[in-house]
């Protein structure tokens, strides 16, 4: 934890050495995310319900998934740059320091500009909160934390895969960036097989969909068992265990580069 903060701060200082580039990256990040927010607004001015969910309810799904992803991406998303570090040989130098290589990877190139994405998601979530009944509000922080853990585990699995397939970081992106796009809308708009897949195989449905059904008091369109609504912590735990094992196996198989 301390090491993470130290490394992240050092990276922020290092990137601040290039003042213009630093300023441009912050401004452009905010601009891109603001445009993104405008796009959502335009969609919702034309559509009042989506997959059986009201505008505010959809914003709730969008916001929870967005906040979880933005946090996971900001704090740990850089682990997916592993293949670049393997090819450049810089991963070797991480392995000779007395700090976990996972922490070093996560903090690597930490950019303060990523706060832009988080800010946008927080605003959408904030606007949706009137749909959340007081008695069920406790689930909101729980689902956000579980979402962060699930997305981080997916990032880690994608990184672990790069130990074997150095040229395939894109595959992992399908599940991370693809995963956030998927979960930002009610899963009821997708096909049944896809929903079963993200429930039982890659448990993205537990990022927000299942706990949100509880929070919003909605019936499951697929009629899946009710206890699944409370299973996010379990799904997060199981997926992180799998990700941790995969990461360790990856390090054992790590082959470095020539000389």
């Amino acid at each position, binding site marked *: 934890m301390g090491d993470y903060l*130290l490394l992240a701060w*050092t990276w922020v*200082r290092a990137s601040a050495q290039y003042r213009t580039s630093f300023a441009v990256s912050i401004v452009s990040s905010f601009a891109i995310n603001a445009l993104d927010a405008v796009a959502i607004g335009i969609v919702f001015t034309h559509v009042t319900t989506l997959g059986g969910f009201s505008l505010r309810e959809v914003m709730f799904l969008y916001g929870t998934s967005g906040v979880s992803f933005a946090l996971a991406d900001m704090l740990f998303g850089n682990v997916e740059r592993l293949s670049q570090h393997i090819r450049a040989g810089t991963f070797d130098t991480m392995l*000779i*320091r007395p700090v976990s290589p996972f922490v070093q990877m996560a903090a690597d190139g930490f950019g303060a500009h990523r706060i832009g994405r988080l800010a946008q998601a927080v605003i959408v979530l904030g606007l949706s909160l009137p749909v959340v009944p007081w008695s069920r509000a406790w689930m909101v922080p729980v689902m956000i934390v579980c979402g962060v853990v699930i997305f981080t585990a997916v990032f880690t699995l994608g990184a672990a895969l790069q130990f074997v397939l150095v040229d395939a970081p894109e595959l992992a992106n399908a599940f991370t960036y693809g995963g956030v796009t998927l979960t930002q809308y009610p899963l009821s708009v997708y096909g049944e097989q896809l929903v079963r897949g993200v429930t039982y195989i890659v448990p993205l449905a537990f990022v927000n969909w299942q706990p949100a059904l509880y929070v919003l008091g909605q019936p499951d369109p697929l009629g899946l068992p009710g206890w699944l609504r409370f299973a996010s912590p379990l799904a997060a735990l199981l997926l992180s265990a799998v990700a941790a094992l995969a990461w360790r196996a990856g390090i*054992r198989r790590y082959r*470095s580069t020539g000389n």
Partner: protein
Amino acid sequence: MIETISLGRDFKVRGAVVPAVHDLTFRVEAGEFVGCLGPNGAGKSTTIKMLTGILTPTRGRALVAGLDPARQRKALARRIGVVFGQRTTLWWDLPLRDSFELVRLLYKVDRDRFGARLAELTEVLELGPFLKTPVRQLSLGQRMRGDITAALLHDPEVLVLDEPTIGLDVVAKGEVRSFLARLNAERGTTVLLTTHDLGDVERLCRRVLLIDHGRLAFDGSVAQLRALVPGQESIEDVVAHLYLSSTPAVPRTPRRTPDADPPTVTA
């Protein structure tokens, strides 16, 4: 201080299993200065990477400072220093001094001990004039001195260097060599280095390990190495002859007797 028993590592190359290092057994005592030689692709770097915890061995075992490198990587990192000639561990965009400060924090070195050690290394390696310069603006010689300093701030018992003099000019090379000789003589730090520069070997190494085709082809003093190929004047010719002749032609000599020849450190 360093011990390997039947150490081996395979790599899969297009489906086929290729042993990069095979059945490597040797011992390095505390305070020794050992050079690791071998043609390109012979397995030197793979060996070094197994000893520093970067690569996990496929077979056999290694013990460095009493630790298993691949399993106790973090504990080992506090006990050894590692320098790669071809890549830096310094922070490219920050002043040199900041990289050292980061080493202090990451290795949790006591502030007073760190200050004293840095002052000492700054003086010996003449880092003073560029401590505040961003690493990206340093010359290769300056950067290498910076890298060596970063590897020594936590006062390791063992220093492992992979081609530390590569690309350096004659003067910079001389500075690095005389520093390493002093470190070994005065502090008793065990040094293991790989190199293609036979000047490094002649000036510094009391003992040479020659790795060829992933196996230990020779283990002995520089004098014993010369004796393998009679009639060759320069050490370059001796080693070239050994590299050209394949593994079976290089006899495997037993471990050298201690102090068979005095160290010839001139730098």
